[in-house]
């Protein structure tokens, strides 16, 4: 079993809902990321999503776009993101790390070289936004050979047959994009999410993480009841952006937000 599968199997038994923070590797600077990852684990994160900066982040809203731009200004890249993951692994062998990014940096590195390097770096999952199952088989096979799950997405407009397809090809977890739109969107409808998750649950046993538009503790609590995990990204990166002069303040604000989400999610009635 992969590290992701083990973690989710344990959570399923205990009823624990996973909290998955997302930050962009190298934002606001490369030195910030590894200590931030450890601090997020301390604050209650169960899995960490590490964004790989890309010049053309088509699925991302302005907040994560600017995070990408700040990281790229520091010459952050897929290779250097893998170094960050490896450095995190030196002192944390249990928290799964999922890379989230776009296909082209992986294409440029080469699927085989990437899969090997990601395996060595201790990466557990790879979510490539613009690599749907139609195009993913070669990459997914190579990743699986190194014990890494290729994470696929589901969307509000995914049909029942599409969900079944994801059940057949997915592993680790499925990422349910809770709004039609880009990251950081502001129009999350929890009733819609609940309804869609019923359809998803009826068609797959793969754990489901829910993300896009989750900004504060109450929403995290509500949403987490429908799935196995919640992902929070833009809300964290906004803290970095608001404190570019003082990353330590950003770090503390991120920790505070995650702790409030953790507490809320652990107090389901």
């Amino acid at each position, binding site marked *: 079993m992969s590290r992701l599968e083990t973690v989710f199997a344990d959570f399923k038994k205990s009823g624990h809902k996973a909290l998955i923070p997302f930050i962009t590797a190298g934002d606001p600077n490369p030195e910030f990321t590894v200590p931030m990852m450890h601090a997020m684990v301390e604050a209650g994160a169960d899995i960490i999503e590490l964004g790989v900066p890309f010049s*053309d982040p088509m699925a991302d809203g302005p907040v994560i776009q600017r995070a990408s731009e700040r990281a790229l200004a520091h010459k952050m890249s897929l290779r250097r993101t893998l170094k960050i993951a490896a450095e995190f692994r030196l002192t944390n062998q249990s928290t799964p790390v999922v890379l989230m990014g*776009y296909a082209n940096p992986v294409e440029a*590195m080469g699927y085989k070289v990437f899969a090997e390097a990601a395996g060595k770096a201790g990466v557990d999952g790879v979510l490539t936004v613009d*690599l749907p199952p139609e195009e993913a088989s070669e990459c997914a096979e190579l990743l699986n050979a190194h014990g890494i799950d290729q994470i696929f997405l589901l969307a509000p407009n995914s049909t029942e047959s599409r969900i079944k397809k994801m059940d057949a090809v997915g592993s680790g977890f499925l990422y349910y*994009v809770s709004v*039609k*739109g880009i990251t950081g969107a502001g129009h999350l409808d929890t009733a819609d999410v609940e309804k869609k998750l019923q359809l998803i649950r009826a068609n797959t046993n793969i754990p489901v993480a829910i993300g896009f538009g989750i900004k504060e503790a109450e929403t995290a609590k509500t949403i987490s009841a429908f799935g196995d995990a919640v992902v929070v990204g833009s809300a964290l990166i906004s803290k970095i952006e608001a404190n570019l002069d003082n990353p330590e303040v950003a770090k503390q604000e991120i920790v505070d937000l995650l702790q409030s989400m953790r507490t809320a999610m652990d107090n389901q009635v």
Partner: protein
Amino acid sequence: MTDTTNPYNMPDDRGHFGPYGGIFIAETLIPAVEELQAAYDQYMTDPEFIAELDKDFQHYVGRPSPLYHAERWSKELGGAQIYLKREDLNHTGAHKINNTIGQILLAKRMGKKRIIAETGAGQHGVATATVCARLGLECVVYMGAVDIARQALNVYRMQLLGAKVVPVTSGSKTLKDALNEAIRDWVTNVDNTFYIIGTVAGPAPYPAMVRDFQTIIGREAREQCLTQAGKLPNALVACIGGGSNAIGLFHPFIDDADVKMFGVEAAGDGIETGRHSAAICAGRPGVLHGNRTYLIEDDDGEIIETHSISAGLDYPGVGPEHAWLNDIGRAEYVSVTDDEALEGFHALTKLEGIIPALESSHAMAYTLKLAPTMKNDEIIIVNLSGRGDKDMHTMAEREGIKI
């Protein structure tokens, strides 16, 4: 080389041209491209749809466009006979309308009320705003802030036509960023919005669909050449940004093995300077904007800012079918610099009284080199993909003239 025993039949049923093309998009867009593929498959074999398209081509666009024998220019160059396919005479002044007419008819049948588009030089934006005005559909055009500054005239045209032009200020503020922003809009408004992509790129079925609307260029040219010259041409020349005018001309000739094809990319300040837009000549395969194709990128796979004097060629990728035609050796891809393009611009203007768009001027510039190497009884068809009116400010500025 091309298999001459079997007719060319690309893409495959998954939208691939060999390793190129495909559907590299976020999950939310999958239902949208599936819906589009189904509509496209249905209507392209529907005689009523085809009849409406043909009628619009004839009476609204003004087709067929002439195939004009540029006798004076041919004589001056002292080699091949040069024929110009006059897409500049289409309504709105470029080949772009062939595609927007086709896609808007599809959008109408699919019941979509809101149209979005990206634009570089503004020609595709104008062509989209035009067909939206005609059908009374809401139209939003994304355009890089840099392009808005250098194509002010086209921005005003779009606004007159009722379109909302949204400046894109992310990244390099040019065509690629306009595409990113249009894709973000599409993901957000996928239920009611039809995305009219302007070139033979994007996720399947766009590269094949846009091509099929543009092949009217090559089908007419082939017939006109046979009628006017009594034989097929020896060579075809067209400029390549995304490559829709080129594929429109090339495609109907692909099985004519003796017809050479030259796609002319923009070398900007020169390929060696790094300031260019020549994706096939100087790039390598990667994935961007929904398809795999040649891209201008760094070692880490980050897209590099491109440059060309012509906004319409200022794009880091190229249509996937061109990538494939390059790899199988069926078409040859070359490049000319900004300065060379200007020579082509002036040659046509002064010798034939036709002012070409800066994009098309790249094809003219390569013709300047190619024609003299060929015999007098050989024929080149050059795609004059658009007229140069929109480029007057760029030209004047370049030559230090205030207008």
